């Protein structure tokens, strides 16, 4: 019940694993298992990283990617959750829409890349569109499922204690679905981050995905790996930020049963 105390092994053990991984990487590059041009050493990557920071490209790429993923994801959250709430409360509408939503949910958003480019050209818009397509449908489905899971006795209580419609929404439905929706936000944000990188490789101009693509075209494997490291780290940070939502006292119940 009490949150586990943060112990020193929580830092020591992962650091140890990282160190060993770094060591294996160094050894492999020293042994020249692959030529330097296709297997950069940690040192080369570090130099490339510094170079990218100095010339400002790294910041530019990170900002571009984060802007696109945030915009697309926010659009999906602010339309997908209300849509899920509405469908969750209307059985007939749910029956009507569910097959279509399921269809799109199972369609990889990357399949839309050609259309995204043809419809929205190059730049932020096609990527935002792809992020939206990747996040909207899973969020709708998760919200519908969460609404369906609300025990009906909660609505009975709301009725007994004279809650109005708006109050029932804000004080019963929303808090009741919050834990499940937060879990789904974390999963969906992870997918959105995967998609932004993939989408930028093809339709991008700036952005971390574009940087990967650009480095590959320029045969700069050191820069490629430094972008990869950045992508992975930001992915972890995004999840960590969303993880904070699960620490709100009034949603803890959803994770401790």
């Amino acid at each position, binding site marked *: *019940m009490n949150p586990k105390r943060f112990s020193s092994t929580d830092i020591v053990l992962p650091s140890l694993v990282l160190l060993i991984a770094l060591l294996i990487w160094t050894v492999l590059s020293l042994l020249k298992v692959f030529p330097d041009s296709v297997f950069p050493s940690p040192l080369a990557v570090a130099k490339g990283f510094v170079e990218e920071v100095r010339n400002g490209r790294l910041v530019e790429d990170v900002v571009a990617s984060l802007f696109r993923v945030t915009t697309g994801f926010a659009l999906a959250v602010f339309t997908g959750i209300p849509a899920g709430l509405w469908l969750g409360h209307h059985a007939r509408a749910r029956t009507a829409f569910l097959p279509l939503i399921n269809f799109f949910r199972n369609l990889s958003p990357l399949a839309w890349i050609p259309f995204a480019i043809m419809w929205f050209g190059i730049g932020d818009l096609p990527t935002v569109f792809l992020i939206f397509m990747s996040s909207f449908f899973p969020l709708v489905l998760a919200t519908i499922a969460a609404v369906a899971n609300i*025990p009906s*006795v*909660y609505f*009975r*209580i709301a009725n*007994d*204690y*004279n809650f109005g419609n708006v109050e029932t929404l804000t004080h*019963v439905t929303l*808090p*009741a679905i*919050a834990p499940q929706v937060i879990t789904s936000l974390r999963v969906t944000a992870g997918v959105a981050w995967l998609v932004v990188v993939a989408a930028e490789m093809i339709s991008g101009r700036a952005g971390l995905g574009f940087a990967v693509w650009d480095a590959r075209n320029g045969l700069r494997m050191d820069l490629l790996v430094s972008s990869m490291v950045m992508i992975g780290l930001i992915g972890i940070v995004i999840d960590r930020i969303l993880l904070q939502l699960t620490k709100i*006292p*009034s*949603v*803890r*119940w*959803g994770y*401790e*049963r």
Partner: protein
Amino acid sequence: MNDKPLRVEDVSLSLGATVVFQHLSLSIGRGEFVAVVGPSGCGKTTLLNLLSRFIKPTAGKVECNGRVRMVYQHDSLFPWQTVSENISLGLRHLKDPSEKRRHLDAMLRLIKLENFADHYPHQLSGGMRQRVELARALIGDTDILLLDEPFSSLDYLTRIRMRNELARMLDQMPRTVVLVTHDIEEAAQLADRIVVLTDRPARVCSQFQIELPRPRELTHPRVVETVHEILTDLGLEHTGWQQVVAR
């Protein structure tokens, strides 16, 4: 003022193809504690839903004079609200915050959960949660309390503890009570009158009056005797307990 706050007159009710009640009549006096026992699925919960006016009878009349609160069969505390917030739902009709605070503090003292005011339901034991459910239903000025198997999910000892707790709370804040239970001991220990229902369509099979002041002990001879009478009535016991003692 009517001295029969709850009255069911010649009520019939069908839910879909299920005939739950046919010509059921029952009335409950002010301040009376009535326990309703009967086989599962016979319509006990449905009877409470009729009494609280949540559903309407197909035919007949249901009268309910007074403010009703119900405690449900399943956990119905809002898990996203603290103990205080959950109990305060019962005080929504009050405007004055300091008056609310006073009522809430008194109730927390009564259920001995002063130190758990800011805890969430999942941080409490089953018995504590059930005390909060009772507190939410009892707080504020209500007249009628409907209890749907409130202790059935608790272990035996906790259940006995909760009976004493309920009797103590009702001693402080008297109410007209209808308790649905499948526990005949519980009914005999707590109620002024026990109504035994038949299988569907449910009729009143027999009634037992227990003229004994509340709260009472589980092993009080009159309570034990009533349990025996009911079990005999249901064909589950045959020899009289007096005979067993005499032997």
